[in-house]
């Protein structure tokens, strides 16, 4: 057993211990298990919300896209900070409404706002279809990290099964509290490692960050700026805007919102989170540093750029510590995702068939759904083949379709009806799915348009279709029973 593997195994045991200890004698009813009794201060909420920045996507996907695509990677730095501006205004009323009505999931919010359990069921399906690939993404990343950082001593399959077992154990025992506790260790580890790698590697290999970019520009002209067509600057603008709208539509983000002690938590976080997201810049630097050092990685192998570089530059123990941080980036977000999915399934989908279920019955079922969902995710992880970024884009395109309906529900006079909301979301999701799986672009759909419009992110089409249908159907059905006004 090598030093790297020992460090990785230790990190997994620390995650398991912290996750289980987080319970500390608390009775894990529905309120405590899902939303931590709505008692988290700004640090824990900060870590839960920031948890979405530092997933395996950060370690593998962000460095991989910088390595493989160059300039298009810049969108990852931009969208989060714009999303935090939206969060400043959106999350306080969502939190207040959740507290007032005792909500535990994102579909709960739609059920109460629109007085429609059917809309809640539709949102639940969208959530689950988005969450499972996101969970698969975390497990895929975990398998890659453990296999590469452990120098092949442990296979991907063993790593995936072990990670799934650890997450299942501490989520069933501690719920959201276990995720929050392990997030503390994760973010400290990530912060230190990413900063050290992002500064050390460009300086050591190129003489500095500026020197690194000069050498890349000389070797690969055009790599560091946007292309004239395709992934052009207009693709960048539209992708940033689209992703910023979807950022807080992920159901686990809404659950993290419910955990807060008061609304001020979100306003304070909106100041700090943009700066905190700049840590991603140092992940980029590692990906860019790999461009000339480990050339030739193609397709899904670009996700290995970071680890290919660090295994060539550092001792096994150092690689193991980096791998340990990577393990946390899979386990912590994975735990929040699977807990959210189990709650949605138990309360908002299966709950339709048993409307008189008590909170205790709901949480018991949710806890036992955790291993079921994890088994499904492990199956897709071991048998799937999509790259990490593609998986994330599918989930993103789905949850973004919830944005118009949610934002309208925050207005003083909500113009959207429950039927209009359902029609809009359904249309948006279908269009997004068709566009994603046919790899269509605006240019391929409407070839005669100016180049700038042809390059716009195709997800905009799904969102526009969603809004058009939402407005038309709401106008047609408004007299048949308007939605509940914002409270």
């Amino acid at each position, binding site marked *: 057993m090598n030093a790297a593997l020992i460090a990785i195994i230790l990190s997994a045991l620390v995650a398991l211990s912290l996750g289980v200890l987080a319970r500390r004698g608390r009775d894990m009813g529905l309120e405590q298990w899902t939303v931590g009794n709505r008692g988290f201060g700004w640090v824990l909420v900060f870590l839960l919300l920031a948890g979405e920045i530092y997933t395996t996507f950060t370690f593998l996907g962000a460095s991989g896209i910088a390595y493989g695509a160059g*300039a298009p990677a810049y969108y990852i730095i*931009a969208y989060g900070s714009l999303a935090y*501006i939206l969060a400043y205004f959106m999350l306080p009323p969502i939190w207040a409404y959740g507290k007032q009505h005792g909500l535990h999931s994102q579909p709960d919010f739609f059920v109460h706002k629109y007085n429609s359990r059917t809309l809640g069921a539709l949102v639940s399906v969208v959530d689950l279809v988005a969450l499972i690939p996101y969970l698969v993404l975390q497990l895929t990343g975990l398998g890659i990290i453990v296999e590469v950082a452990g120098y092949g001593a442990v296979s991907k399959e063993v790593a995936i099964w072990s990670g799934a077992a650890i997450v299942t154990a501490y989520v069933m025992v501690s719920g959201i509290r276990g995720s929050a506790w392990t997030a503390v260790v994760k973010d400290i580890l990530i912060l230190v490692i990413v900063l050290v790698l992002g500064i050390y590697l460009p300086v050591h290999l190129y003489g500095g960050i*500026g020197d690194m970019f000069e050498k890349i520009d000389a070797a690969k002209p055009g790599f560091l700026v*946007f292309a004239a067509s395709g992934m052009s*600057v207009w693709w960048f603008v539209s992708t940033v805007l689209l992703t910023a709208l979807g950022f807080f539509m992920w159901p686990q983000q809404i659950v993290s919102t419910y955990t807060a002690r008061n609304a*001020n938590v979100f306003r304070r976080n909106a100041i700090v989170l943009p700066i905190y997201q700049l840590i991603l810049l140092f992940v980029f630097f590692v990906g860019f540093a790999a461009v000339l050092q480990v050339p030739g990685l193609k397709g899904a192998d670009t996700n290995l750029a970071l680890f290919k570089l660090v295994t060539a530059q550092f001792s096994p123990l150092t690689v193991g510590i980096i791998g340990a941080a990577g393990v946390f980036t899979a386990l912590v977000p994975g735990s929040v995702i699977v807990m959210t999915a189990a709650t949605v399934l138990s309360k908002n989908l299966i709950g339709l068939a048993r409307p008189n279920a008590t909170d205790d019955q709901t949480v018991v079922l949710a806890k036992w759904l955790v291993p079921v969902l994890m088994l499904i995710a492990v199956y897709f992880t071991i048998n799937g083949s999509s790259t990490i970024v593609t998986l994330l884009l599918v989930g993103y395109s789905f949850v973004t379709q919830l944005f118009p309906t949610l934002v309208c529900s925050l207005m003083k006079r909500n113009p959207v009806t429950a039927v209009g909301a359902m029609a809009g979301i359904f249309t948006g999701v279908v269009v997004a799915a068709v566009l994603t799986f046919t790899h269509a672009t605006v240019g391929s759909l409407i070839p005669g348009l100016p180049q700038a419009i042809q390059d716009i992110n195709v997800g905009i089409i799904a969102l526009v279709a969603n809004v058009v249908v939402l407005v038309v159907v709401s106008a047609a059905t408004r007299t048949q029973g308007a939605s509940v006004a914002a409270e």
Partner: protein
Amino acid sequence: MTLIRILAVVPFIGIFIGPIVHNQVHPLILGMPFPLGWVTVWVVLISIIMAIIYAIDPANK
């Protein structure tokens, strides 16, 4: 409230202006290609803008 809305909208325009009007590597900003450096500077500005909004927001007070 008007000032808060203006402050909140400005980054949605500002962060894109640099890459749109000057999609070139040079001049480097903070050692980074111009578009990446521009976005980075705006992310810092967004934190400052959010701090200003937080300070003047009557809802917060």
